[in-house]
């Protein structure tokens, strides 16, 4: 049992304030038993420190993960933009409430004139479309007739050629039969 004014373990563990430490140090100069006890504690602490810290085998690091990241709105809120947002919202509400009423603009044309103008424009547009369709139909007909004429000419030429071939075969048969009669 120590007779020190303060616990020697607190002294070794540096948990005493400066005044208490001085008291213990003065006591240790005069008390051999406490000095021995303090020395044993100091040696125990030193032995404990022979265990060195190890390096961590694998460094720890995280990658950005949307699950744990705060939302954009939340980060915006936390970043201190909330007052600005409140001001903008207030400005929008103010503008909506105190917006000047729209002024009615009088038209220079009367409704009958407008209707007549629309009818005339529509008639012009319809006429233009019909003319364009008629022109397109005529072009298609002309192209079809031209294609038909070319096909007829090709058929006629093919028939003439077939006829000539047939005639040549007949001539060859005729000459062959005459030659056979002469040799017999």
């Amino acid at each position: 049992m120590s007779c020190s004014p303060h616990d020697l373990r607190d002294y070794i563990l540096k948990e005493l304030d400066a005044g208490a430490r001085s008291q213990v140090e003065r006591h240790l100069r005069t008390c051999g038993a406490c000095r021995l006890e303090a020395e044993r504690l100091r040696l125990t602490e030193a032995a404990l420190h022979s265990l060195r810290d190890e390096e961590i085998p694998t460094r720890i690091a995280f990658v950005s993960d949307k699950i744990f990241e705060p939302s954009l709105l939340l980060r915006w809120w936390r970043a201190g933009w909330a007052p600005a947002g409140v001001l903008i919202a207030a400005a929008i509400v103010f503008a909506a409430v105190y917006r000047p009423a729209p002024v009615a603009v009088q038209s220079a044309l009367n409704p009958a004139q407008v209707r007549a103008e629309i009818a005339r424009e529509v008639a012009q547009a319809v006429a233009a479309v019909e003319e364009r369709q008629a022109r397109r139909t005529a072009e298609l007909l002309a192209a079809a007739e031209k294609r038909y004429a070319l096909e007829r000419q090709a058929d006629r030429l093919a028939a003439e050629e077939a006829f000539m071939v047939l005639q040549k075969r007949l001539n060859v048969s005729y000459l062959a039969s005459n030659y056979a009669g002469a040799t017999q």
Partner: protein
Amino acid sequence: MIFRAVEDADLIRKACRGDVEGYNLLISRWEKRVYNYLLRMVANREDALDLTQDVFLKAYQNLRKLDDPARFPAWLFRIAHNEAYSMFRSQKPETAVMPEDRAADVFPIELALAVSSALERLSPEQREAVVLKIYQGFKFDEMAAILGCPVSTVKSRLYTALDLLKAELAPVNRAG
């Protein structure tokens, strides 16, 4: 130490805003201490590394609940303490490794082995008190916050542990 505290506070604020790189920087400043605390608690490198990762994940998920960034070290070690005890509770007796085997695996040097064996013979609460005080340098009130108990309990555990260690390590010291 003051600079470190200031920088930690800055990194904590960045991490709270979703800056993962800021949090990774904070991890790099604390991972070795947390790992060694857990290594001395569980005496197994793989378990200590797994627990360290869990500690920093839980810390990130709960970082916004930390009111005072100055309390970060004690708060972080409180999470580590909870993780270590969760693992102790989940370990089945038949799968638990005997302390002597683990000590030989972790610290090969003779004196370190003797110290390690002496630490292993302490109760988990006494060992944790020694680790937090001797190896991590926490004050009694910080230890009380980490362990969730009164300062008187912290001192009682630590003093008992120191007395046991002193008796155990004295032959080693005289021989050395």
